[in-house]
């Protein structure tokens, strides 16, 4: 913690903590939303004509599919035409508010330091988390991904909190190797890529949950048709589905308001490929910088190794999506592993691995 005396940097710290508090509240609001949104969705359905359910013929999987199709339409709806999840709205409003404080914190830090605020671990985390929120809010304009709000605000609350507690470093002048336009470009684009990978990761996780729900629904149908022959098929399926729903065997109830695992996968893929492009650029820009600063464009320095590993993992993910037998659940795991590597690179590698990239400012 800095001294109590007034400085722009201490204002920045104050803003950081305010942002953290607001994000924590946003997280709570989003969590309440997830807990409640399935009920809201069910009520909305009841009010609407139950055409889909009838058309679906009553089998569990077709009921699930109908829910998913409606959810997909809602995800792709224009901002004005989205379902009115009141807690999600509160969550988003709080996120925007927290974001404003976050931006304030970042800018005051930048002014206090007299340079771009991403030159050591503290500043990098500060800006990186800000970009995660920025990308999330930006994406909300096109897709209603508020169901990822808990993940995004939770992630940022934890990262930013840890940053403020453990990574804080006072403003010191830049060391010579960091005085480069490539710092501005390379690090900024890397943060953007990280934000996109985070979204892809969250979508891949929901994809896995949804895929499980779909599998269970199919299994329930099979059980009911191959099971008691006497029972009326429709009633049996409805019963099985009801039982599964009540006992929570199909996973969290909010899954009912989410699109199909296929649709989630395709969304995850979209963010991952944009992230991949940015990451490729990061790799190239980093090499150009390394060639100026260290006299070689590539030297398998620890940080370079991990940047490469992440790049190859995501190349693998993209391939997996195009490989028979790997599309779906398996490729989703690769997206999850990829993001785990990104987080590992940012935390563990920065703090504990030895290498030339000693910009953490921690000792």
């Amino acid at each position, binding site marked *: 913690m800095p001294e109590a005396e007034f400085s722009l940097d201490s204002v920045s710290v104050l803003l950081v903590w305010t942002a953290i508090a607001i994000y924590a509240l946003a997280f709570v609001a989003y969590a309440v939303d997830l807990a409640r949104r399935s009920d809201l969705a069910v009520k909305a359905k009841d009010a609407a004509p139950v055409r889909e359910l009838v058309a679906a013929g009553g089998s569990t999987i077709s009921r699930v599919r109908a829910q998913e199709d409606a959810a997909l339409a809602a995800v*792709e709806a224009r901002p004005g035409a989205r379902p009115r999840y009141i807690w999600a709205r509160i969550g988003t409003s709080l996120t925007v508010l927290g974001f404003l404080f976050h931006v304030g914190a970042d800018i005051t830090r930048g002014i206090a330091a007299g340079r771009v605020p991403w030159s050591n671990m503290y500043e990098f985390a500060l800006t990186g988390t800000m970009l995660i929120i920025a990308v999330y809010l930006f994406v909300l304009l096109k897709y209603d991904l508020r169901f990822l709000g808990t993940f995004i605000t939770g992630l940022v609350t934890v990262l930013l909190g840890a940053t403020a507690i453990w990574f804080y470093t006072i403003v010191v*002048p830049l*060391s*010579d*190797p960091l005085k480069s336009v490539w710092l501005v470009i390379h690090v900024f684009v890397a943060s953007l890529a990280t934000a996109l990978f985070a979204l892809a990761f969250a979508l891949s996780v929901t994809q896995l949950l949804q895929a499980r729900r779909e599998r269970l629904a199919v299994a329930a149908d099979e059980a009911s048709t191959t099971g008691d022959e006497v029972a009326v098929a429709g009633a049996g399926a409805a019963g099985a589905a009801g039982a599964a729903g009540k006992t929570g065997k199909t996973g969290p109830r909010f899954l009912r308001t989410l699109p199909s695992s296929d649709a989630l996968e395709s969304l995850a*893929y979209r963010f991952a490929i944009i992230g991949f492009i940015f990451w490729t650029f990061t790799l190239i820009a980093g*090499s150009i910088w390394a060639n100026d600063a260290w006299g070689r464009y590539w030297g398998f320095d620890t940080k370079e190794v991990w940047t*490469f590993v992440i790049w*190859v993992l995501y190349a693998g993910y993209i391939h997996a999506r195009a490989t028979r037998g790997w599309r779906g659940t398996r490729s989703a795991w690769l997206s999850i592993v990829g993001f785990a590597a990104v987080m590992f690179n940012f935390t563990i590698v920065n703090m504990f691995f*030895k290498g030339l990239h000693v910009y953490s400012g921690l000792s």
Partner: protein
Amino acid sequence: MSNSPSDPALAPELVEGPGTDPLRPSDHADGTREITQPQLGFVGWLRWGWRQLTSMRTALVLLLLLAIAAIPGSIFPQRTADPNGVIDFQTKNPDLYPVLNGMQLFDVYSSAWFSAIYILLFISLIGCVLPRTKHHFKALKARPPRTPARLSRLDDHAETLRPVAEGTDAGASAAHIVDVAQAQLRKAGYRVERYDTAAVGGRPAVASVSAERGYARETGNLVFHAALVGVLISVGVGGGLTYTGQTVIVEGDSFVNSLGLGYTSFNPGRFVDSEALPPYSLTLDSFDVSYVPVGESGQGMAGDFSANLTTREPGQDAKEQSVRVNHPLDMAGDRIYLMGNGYAPTITVRNPDGDVVFREDVEFLPQDANMTSQGVVKITDGLSDQLGLVGFFYPTAMTLHSGALTSAYPALVSPLLTFWVYAGDLGINDGTARNVYALDPSEMTLLAGSTSDVAALQLEPGQTVDLPNDMGTITFEDNTANGGAETVKRYVSLSIHRDVGAPFVLAFAVIALLGLLAALFVPRRRLWVKAVPADGGVRIEYAGLARGEDPAIAVAVADLQRGLETALDGEKA
């Protein structure tokens, strides 16, 4: 979301267009073919093996293996990046070291297993890309596929009935509508082909246009993969033509780019002719550095390093240039980097008669951020015994509570030089090269400093003190007396590189990135417009089919419909 690349329920003519679809390994997610069992016989097995190697699954597995195999290199110190780390590891883990070394874990990126993975990957890549390239060249010339009989079976499909004015021929009107659609599609960058059928028996004439776009997607994919091969080759070939060398220059001194004269170390690639280095010379005129003043945050931090050189090339005027961090100097195809700096106190040793037996700028290696530095002086001839002096230099000397000296600030505020003195055999008479920065005192006696009873010699700039045992005197020259800007000279260490491959690596990397952009974001899709006379008007059908990831296919069909109707309405008015 109708972007699933293919729907098995579709008619085969949609899935297998007449040669315009990209060729894919047989286990690609879009494919319908299975890898067949190997035919009997050697050739059959070979073909089967080759198909396995160039399959999507193999590529995927090799990619994942590559990622995993790269990780140990970030855990264990690597000889190329951190040679001292390896030595350190060896001393700390003498038992583990040979095992890990045998597994090439200190040379991961040149190890047999790492090489095997990437070489296989690239063989697979080439084997995969070559046939696809050949196929794609043909596809680029092919026409868009025939309009399917029933467009309504496609996910993205729309249909309208357009009345025709009385007295107009519905067939002609249908053809006209498709003409307009064709013009629009062509303008939008689609390759178009008409598939009209004349009226047969009871069936009316059908006008239709088939349009396809996004060949750049496959082009981009192929360019991307090929550029990766380019990167690999540039790295490999470039490595053989690359050299790096290190040198140290003290203020006022010069470096000549020649192996025998200038370098303290030199690592040439396999194909480098070390005898034919470009002739040039560098003179260090001065070295600039600024330190953060005492009392400010980051106190003592050094920055704004600049080695100011006079450079000379044959047939050219001397030039004044500087080398800074992040700003290497280009000289005759070499790049010169500033790697380090330090102090080089000028030391004079005289024998008891007052004759100079040694006079040199001795480079001291910095030990900490405040430039506490260490150096060694070896006097082989001219005194009664060989002398070895281990020196410590403190630019801003300060005494700690313990009585030990330290440097409190990196600039020359109160410079102080101390020496431990050893006499005896320096161990350099047998002609083997010795490290100039280290002294081997095993054959020597300690005369002053360290554990000896005699205190270490202490000198400030300009001072002279006696050596122990009346062996003579030693002087720490004040450089300002010789016209220098500071009391002590500085030196820089420079690294000189020639990397022939780097520009090619960069070029291929950028091409790969551009290819990737096209491969991932250019939508590849087919659109159809069909017009059939029906019920006193013309029934217009629109349909689209995504070929690969295409989130906007539905929008594209809707746009097509809107565009055509607007144009037709405009005609009427």
